[in-house]
Structures are given as C-alpha cells and as structure tokens.
C-alpha cells in the first residue's frame, strides 16, 4: 500500500506537505502523515546521476537529493568567495559525500546498509560544513517570525550570524519565495566560475533568452505571479507547471529589474543574486541544518515535524511504521505542532505542569519508563517527591521525621528566647525588621552558629544543613518548616478518625510514615484495591513481565499484607504494602495523576497524619498491642488470604480454600508437573552417616 501511495508524490519533487516548508504548510490541509511524505520524498527523487551532480545548478530546492547537491555546491561557492584554497583531497571527499547522499536519498531505506565508509564521508562533509559555518551571515527573507527565530538559533548554534537587515555583509539569504535563477555559476567541474557580482551581472543578460515567449502573456497578470510567488506550494507542482512558474517569476524579476523597483522585496533576492550571495529556499535551509545535525543520514532521513494527529491516530497494526511514528511523535512534541491542528494536538498530549520526572526512550520506540508530575509546591521542601529531610540519627534521610523536627523546633525556640534578644539589635541594623517566623528561625540559626559552644548533636545537624545552603538551598528553609503551623494543626484533627492503630505497632512505624498508614486503610477491608488506574496497571504489567511465571504484581503482596494486618502482632512486617496501591497513593499525594478521589483524600490525610504521630508513638504502640490481643478471635474467623496461584493461573480469595480446590489439587497430584523438580530433589537427599 505504500507504493500505491507513493506514486503520486513521485511526480512531485517538492512535496507540498514537507514539514520543513513551515509557511506553506500552514495554509494547506494535510491529508496524511508526513512520515510517509518524508520517506516518499526520497523515493520520489529523480536518480541523481553523477553528471547531474557535477553539473550543479538546476532549480533551487527541488528535492532532497538536490538539496544536498546544492549544499555541496554552496560550499564550493563559499570557498571561492573566501578565496580559500581547498585541497584536492577534501574536494574529492566532498564530491563523494554529495554522491553518497544523493544515492542514499535515491535508495531510501535500502541505503541503511550503506557502509560506514559512506557515513564517514558524510561526516567529513559535516565536519567541513561545521567549520565554515561560522563565516556565514544569514538574512531571512519573507520568513515568519517564529520560524525565523528558530532558524536563527540553529544557525547560531553553528556559529553563524543573522543579519536583521539586508546588507552586503550577508552571505546567505533564506527565503520562502521562489528564487531567481542563478546563471551558470559553476563550471562542470564545479571549480572554475566564481559567483562574483560582476560575473553575475555579466551573465544575466543572457538569461532572458531562456524564457519561453509563449509565457509572456502571463506578464499581463502580475497579480497572478505575485500570488504564485507568495505561495511556495507552487514549488511542489508538477514539473511543467513549476517550470512555467519559474519562468514567469524570472520574467517578473526582469520586469521589476527594468522598472528598477527597489522597494519590491523580490528585489532583495535579485540583489542578493547580483551580489553573489547564496539564496536558499527555507526548505533547503532546513535540509542543510538537518544534515549538519544528523550523524547518520541513512538512518535518520526524517527528523521533521509532523502533524501530531497523524502520528497518534496512525494505524498501529503497521508495526514497521510504529517506530517512525513514535519518533515523529517525539519530534512533534519537542518542536511544537507543525500544522494548524492545534486543538487536536493538545488534547492528545499531556504536558507536565509541575515538577516532573520523565524517563523515556531516546528513540521513542517504547512507552516512557517513568513519567510523573509532582504538584509544584510553594516551597520546594513541601514537594511530595523524595528529598533530603532533617531527620534524627538512624532515620532515613528522605522521609520526614516529625519527632526530630519537633525537637529541633523546641531547641529553636529556646535558642530564640536566649539569643534572639541579644542578636536582635545587631541584626535589625543590617536586616531590618524580623517580623516573620521564618526569618526569625533563620536568624536563630545564625545566632546559634555564632555560638559554637552551645552545640548539641541535633544542633550540629541543623547548622550543617544551613552550611549546605549554597548547594542545597531547600534545606535551609526546611529548618524553618516546623514553625509553620498549618501542617501540624489539621493533622491532629484527622488523627483519631482515620488511623487504624494496627499498623503502628511496628518498631519502624515512624520511619515510613506514608505507606504504613495508607496500608491500613484499603487492605483492612480485605479487598484488593480496585481503584487501579491505567497507568498503574501498565506498571503492574511491566513489572511482572520478567518474573518467572505470569503473576499479577500486587496480589501476593496484598495477600501477605492481608495476613499481617489480620495477625496484627507480626511486628514490623506490617509495613508491607501492595505496590500498586502505593502507586495510587503516591499519585494521589503528588496530585494530578488519575487516582481515585478516595485515594487522594486518604493520601492527603496520610500526609498530614504523619506529622503528629511520633509523640504518641509509644502510646500507640502500647495500645496496638492490647488492641491486637483483643481482636484476635475476630480476625481468625475471617482470615482470608487472597492471592494468585501460579499453577492454576488464577486469583483466589482465600489461600486455604484455593489449595484444596479441585483444580489446584489436580495440579498438585499430577506427577508430570513435578517431574523436573523431583529430579533435582533426588540430588538433594540428605546423605546419611556411614554406619561405623
């Protein structure tokens, strides 16, 4: 089906939909993916015979292959302009590169097997171009601003300059309009002729001869010409037409020339020609930039912007296309929409809005490994992502340690009481007033720092934090956190209602504030969390994928957790959490991910909840123990252990029930299932002592 599609384009050297043709693209409706276009454009090229290459000039911006030829051409001109002698070797290399590029364009994907040697040549070409680029001065003519800016950045990245106004310093003009023809600037070997203005001027008079007189009548319709000129789409018209157009344009140029219409922008192109500047079509410019950026042209023919709708709605059954599509998608994502279809585009993509982490395939062939958006907090230490916190000795540095913070807070207050008064006068001088808690805290810390004698272990941790401010500014504010009341106060309120004390019996309870608490809630009901979002589900799938045997991710853990919840006193192990649920909670905490409302609420409660529990920890632990004993009988009654059986490949509500089920018994009693294992077990028989 590809071929049948390709045919029409083969006749159209300059694909209308070329993504590089940014301006025209805006005006044309797209019918299909540019992925196809790009590939097709290579197929669509006329065979780039060597002869053609050497002969050089044809129409500007004809096709990709031609584009590269032109690039090489340009280089030689440039050299001539610069009077930079070029070694024969380099020259050869470049010509070779030209050919290789051309031939690769011709053969399209087939050329992927083209040897590294070829690539090497291209790289040399690149290398050369990168070297000369800094001497280029670009003038962008009739280029929309946004495109111009991007182009300007691109050229700047190679050291070239952009001229805002047309001047004699310009070496290259990039335009979206039809380019006035060059006279035979290059001799067959590409070496002899110069592009000096005088030469140009001399050669020009001969040009009118090439105009087909039959087209002269066109001159009666200048508006028509103009419209063509401003409609680069015309470039993609069939050869004949564009030829005509070309000639028409030329005619118009001559026309304007003779009329000496200096105000005509077309005059700039003409002038540029006259002055021996290079004139590139925007398309060609893009192509050159692309080639310079790419290190492997045979592999990366299409790195252009494409309509994202085409990428997304693409038929996924075409597995071969998938890679391209995803790459195009990525390009689209990074470069912004290339067409006017913005509405569609934005609804298909979700942009991160907060503090995100995004880990994705560099070639966009697979789904992102990680993508998460944390809500942007007012202060970074309020962010819900893991970050260094001030914690007591022995504690995980990533999990907030409320008890420790409280301790610090107390010390801080004391310090404030003692030192603040002394320091106040001095500080007021330099810092002005100190009305805020935060500033006060900072002041207190400073004060503390100035008094090394008064240091305690905790205090040192505090000052240490402060000393790290330069590299880790967040921590400085962390110290002031306990002074901010809003967090602590609501926490107290939710406490009694929400907390099933069961899980707090753990010795590490305070270490892992979040999951431990969250774990109590849904699991206690004995049901697997059903609020699994697609994102989480996909993670589950991926996570189990490589484990031997097919299993769902959470079931076993839920199972385990379930048992522990019911058994209560199995100690610290109560921290177990079904990872899927944790994801859910995480997602909820971190907001904006599609977790259920309940989970979100729960999560928020969790966060606030953790702030106060440490003080009561001991208390709670005692309560837990008692509570556990009391409820034991109840628990035994409904001691369901849900899980997943690898052998029956099914989930079960209760382990004990499942293992006596007919299906499972049948598996257990089928010797065939155990053959391999039994063979090994035979080797593991415990050796008896030799009888002495």
């Amino acid at each position: 089906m590809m071929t049948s599609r390709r045919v029409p384009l083969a006749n159209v050297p300059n694909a209308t939909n070329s993504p590089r043709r940014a301006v025209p693209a805006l005006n044309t409706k797209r019918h299909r993916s540019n992925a196809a276009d790009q590939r097709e454009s290579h197929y669509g090229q006329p065979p780039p015979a060597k002869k053609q290459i050497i002969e050089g000039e044809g129409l500007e911006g004809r096709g990709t292959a031609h584009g590269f030829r032109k690039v090489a051409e340009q280089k030689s001109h440039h050299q001539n302009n610069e009077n930079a002698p070029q070694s024969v070797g380099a020259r050869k290399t470049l010509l070779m590169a030209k050919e290789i590029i051309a031939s690769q364009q011709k053969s399209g994907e087939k050329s992927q097997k083209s040897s590294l040697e070829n690539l090497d040549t291209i790289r040399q070409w690149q290398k050369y171009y990168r070297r000369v680029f800094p001497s280029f001065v670009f003038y962008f003519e009739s280029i929309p601003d946004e495109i111009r800016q991007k182009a300007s950045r691109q050229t700047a990245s190679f050291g070239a300059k952009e001229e805002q106004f047309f001047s004699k310093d310009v070496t290259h003009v990039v335009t979206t309009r039809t380019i006035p023809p060059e006279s035979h600037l290059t001799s067959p070997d590409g070496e002899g002729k110069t592009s000096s203005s005088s030469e140009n001027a001399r050669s020009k008079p001969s040009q009118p001869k090439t105009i087909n007189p039959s087209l002269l009548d066109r001159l009666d319709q200048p508006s028509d010409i103009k419209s063509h000129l401003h409609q680069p789409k015309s470039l993609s018209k069939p050869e004949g037409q564009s030829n005509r157009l070309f000639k028409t344009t030329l005619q118009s140029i001559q026309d304007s020339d003779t009329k000496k219409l200096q105000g005509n922008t077309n005059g700039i192109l003409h002038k540029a020609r006259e002055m021996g500047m290079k004139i590139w079509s925007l398309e060609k410019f893009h192509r050159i930039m692309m080639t310079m950026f790419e290190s492997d042209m045979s592999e990366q023919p299409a790195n252009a912007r494409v309509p994202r709708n085409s990428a997304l709605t693409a038929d996924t059954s075409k597995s071969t296309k998938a890679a391209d599509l995803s790459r195009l998608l990525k390009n689209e994502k990074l470069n912004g929409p290339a067409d006017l279809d913005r509405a569609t585009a934005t609804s298909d993509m979700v942009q991160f809005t907060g503090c995100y982490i995004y880990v994705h395939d560099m070639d966009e062939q697979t789904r992102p490994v990680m993508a998460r958006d944390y809500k942007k907090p007012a202060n970074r230490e309020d962010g819900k992502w893991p970050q260094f916190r001030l914690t007591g000795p022995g504690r995980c540095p990533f999990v907030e340690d409320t008890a420790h913070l409280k301790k610090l807070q107390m010390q801080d207050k004391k310090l404030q009481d003692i030192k603040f008064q002394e320091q106040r006068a001095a500080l007021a001088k330099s810092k002005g007033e100190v009305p805020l808690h935060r500033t006060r805290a900072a002041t207190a810390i400073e004060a503390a720092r100035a008094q090394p004698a008064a240091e305690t272990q905790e205090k040192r941790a505090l000052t240490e934090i402060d000393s790290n401010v330069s590299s880790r500014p967040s921590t400085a504010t962390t110290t002031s956190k306990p002074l901010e009341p809003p967090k602590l106060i609501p926490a107290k309120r939710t406490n009694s209602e929400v907390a099933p004390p069961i899980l707090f019996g753990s010795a590490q309870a305070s270490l892992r504030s979040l999951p431990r608490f969250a774990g109590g809630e849904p699991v206690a009901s004995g049901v697997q969390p059903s609020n699994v979002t697609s994102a989480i589900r996909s993670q589950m799938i991926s996570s189990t994928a490589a484990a031997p045997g097919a299993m769902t991710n959470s079931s076993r853990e839920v199972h385990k957790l379930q048992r522990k919840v019911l058994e209560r006193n199995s100690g610290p192990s109560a921290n177990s959490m079904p990872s899927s649920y944790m994801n859910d909670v995480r997602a909820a905490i971190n907001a904006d991910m599609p977790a259920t409302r309940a989970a979100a609420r729960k999560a928020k409660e969790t966060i606030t909840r953790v702030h106060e529990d440490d003080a009561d920890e001991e208390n709670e632990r005692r309560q837990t123990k008692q509570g556990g004993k009391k409820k034991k009988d109840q628990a035994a009654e409904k001691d369901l252990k849900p899980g997943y059986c690898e052998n029956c490949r099914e989930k079960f509500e209760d382990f004990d029930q499942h293992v006596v089920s007919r299906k499972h018994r049948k598996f257990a009693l089928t010797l065939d299932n155990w053959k391999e294992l039994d063979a090994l077990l035979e080797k593991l028989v415990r050796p008896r002592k030799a009888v002495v």
Partner: protein
Amino acid sequence: MDESKDPLEESGGTHSDESDDEIDDYVIEDMQKFQDSFKGITRRYRLINRIGEGTFSTVYKAEDLHYDAYQNDWDVEAKENAKWSSPSSRRRMFAHRQKPHCVAIKKIYATSSPGRILNELELLHDLRDSTSVCPLITAFRHQDQVIAVLPYFQHRDFREYFRDFTISDMRHYFHSLFTALKAVHDHNILHRDIKPTNFLYSPTHARGVLVDFGLAERQGTDAHFCTCQLDPRDRQYAVQSSAYSNSLVDRGVTPATDTLVPAVPRSDARATRRANRAGTRGFRAPEVLLKCTAQTTAIDVWSAGVILLTLLTRRFPFFHSADDIDALIELATIFGKRRMREAALLHGQVFETSIPTVTEGGHGFQKLVLWCLGRPSGSERVAKGGAGLSKEELEAVTFMQECFELNPEKRITADQALAHPFIMKRGVGEEGEDEMDVVTT
C-alpha cells in the same frame, strides 16, 4: 512477583531473638497447620517458631531431630567448635548435647510454580560449596508443598548493630558479603535481592551467610539487547543519532539548557519496555530502575554499596521510596542530573526532570556522609576546625563510590572488591580473635 520485602518489614527475616518461649498463638496455629499438611514432617523436625516470611515462603526454626544420623558438612559452627576447642571442652560439648540442633525450614507456598521452586533450589544446589552462601541441607516435596531445609544461622538483626558499626566492623562485614557475592557471581548468578535481611551476619564471628535465592537468576535469563551492551563508541553513535539528540540539536539546546517542558501522549499505544525489576526498593541499581534489559551481576554490587552507605551514614534504610520513580529521584538527588542523564543514556533512556531538589551536580558522598552523621563539612568545617572524614572513613567512602559506579560495566566486581584496600586491610591493627581472620585468609 518482583518485589521482595521492604527493608523495614523484615524483622522476621532476621529473627535473632532467642526468646523462643514467647510464641504468639496464631503462630502456633500456623505451625500446627503446617505440620498437619506435611505428612511425616514431625518425625524429622520439631517446629520451634516462625522466624520469617519471605515473598514466596515462610521460614520456621525447627529442631533437627535426627541430626546425628546424617553427614553434616554444612554445619560450620559444629566444625569450628571441634577445631578450636580442647578435648576437655569437646567432652563438655557432648555433655551439652541436650542443646537441640536447629535448622531453618523454608516452606515454599503451594501457589508457587514448580518452575520457580526449581530455579531457587537448583541455584542453591549449584552454590552448595560456596563459602558465605547458605547451604541447602535438603529439600523435599509432599504433593504441592515443597520445603527446603537450611542451617539455622546464629546472627544478629541488622538494626541492632548498624548504628555502632566501626569501619573495622564494616571491613569484615563486606569481606564476608563479597566473598558470597564472588561465589554467586562466579556461577554467573544474580542474587537480585542483596540487603541486610538476606545476609545473616554475626558480628561476633565476623561471618555471614547469604540467603534467599528466591529472586535469583542466571545472568542472561530473558535478557535481550540493551544499548549498554554496545561498546562506548557505538553507543555514542546510537545516542547521537537518536530522535532525542536530534531534537535537541534542532532546537539548538543541550540537555542542561533545555527549557522545553515535555509532554506525554494521553494514550500511548507503544510497547512497554520490559525488564526484570525483581529486588527490594531502595536497593535496586539504577539500571534496574531504568529497565535495562541486559542486567548483570553488577546489580548485586550496587545493593552491597547501599548497605555500606547505610552503615556509613548510620541510617537504615537509607533509601526509602514508594516505588521505582521515587527511588530514581532519590538516586538523582545524590548523583545529580548530569550523571543521571549519562546513566540513563547508557540504556537508551532520556532522563529529564524539573524537580528543584535534584541539582545538576548532585552531592558528594563525603559531604553526604558527614551531613548524615551530623558532622560539619566544607567551609563550615574549615571555619570551625572540625574533623572531616577520617582516613579509614575515606577509604570506605572510596570503596562505596566504586560500588556506586552508575555504569554497571565500570562498577567494581565482587572479585575486585575483595582485593580492594578497604577489604584487604580488615583486621589490621586489631587485637585478639580478629587477627585470626587475617591469618586464615
């Protein structure tokens, strides 16, 4: 199931409490059930207590009723006692025979597939002669119930000692651990779940054994191509020609200067990248988090590094994340964006983040350790004249950094680790029994 237990939930796994008399009712109930279900087990073993619950199993402490009828090559302690005790004390030992010989019985859940069980037992069998790897005494099956009998190893719970471990203690600990890892890795096996709970260590004997091969696998199992397998030049080439690099170049930015906020497709039909993630949160190597599809034994070395970090900073657990994403953020907080980008690209992944606490350069380990210990570092230290890391500590940090090499290929191997000064110097300058270690090795 790819998650092992969380470091926090495992007191059961390193149950070292000798107060066997205090057994909860439900445990007794559970043991009764077990004994009933497994025909004939009571004739050979007397269950004493439940000492741990793994992902796929429960472990019981039991008395080995017919100990003397079997060859007990696995019994290191008995051998040691015989070796070092005088004849008289040996006699005393005979008199002391009342003390039961204990084993650990691992009951593998009936819902585990024979294949999974086979994997674990087979690997253990392969490793039967390896020092520091918990040997398998025997294993048997009754219908769908498989049990493995392992030595009961005297050890102490990690949480009891991680706060007061000296550098010297650490040298011994890691000598023992890396001896086990070398054996495992020499067999081309990845343990996948290295963490304190799975390394039963006895500080007094300066000896530990590696247990729980439930997640272990042979290197190359289910592996397929990952960019990290390319040689650096080819990899660089692959990266440079990637869609991502091109887009960067297109926009004329570098990863560090890129300000474009990425977007993800609302519905993504692309295939999911799949890789074995088995292991425990907080101990997973970056390549595991990044779903490298060709993981190597180097992942175990990373996990060992996490243990050392725990000991050096006296914080357990050091990493504590709800999931892999948070785990990677934790790593990024330390290593910084630049190095994480490099680490991700090794596996063909692009790491991007706007999280403000993840800085470009990250934090140095020396500073981190000092900070965790509440000791001043940097300019403050200079100002106050406080002590930085001692020479010994520096050596440990250097060693740890080699375990934390983000590129798994460049990471120190277990073999190299055993030759590292940090481990080689164990016992130097110590007195008494410890010197024996130096002599014997």
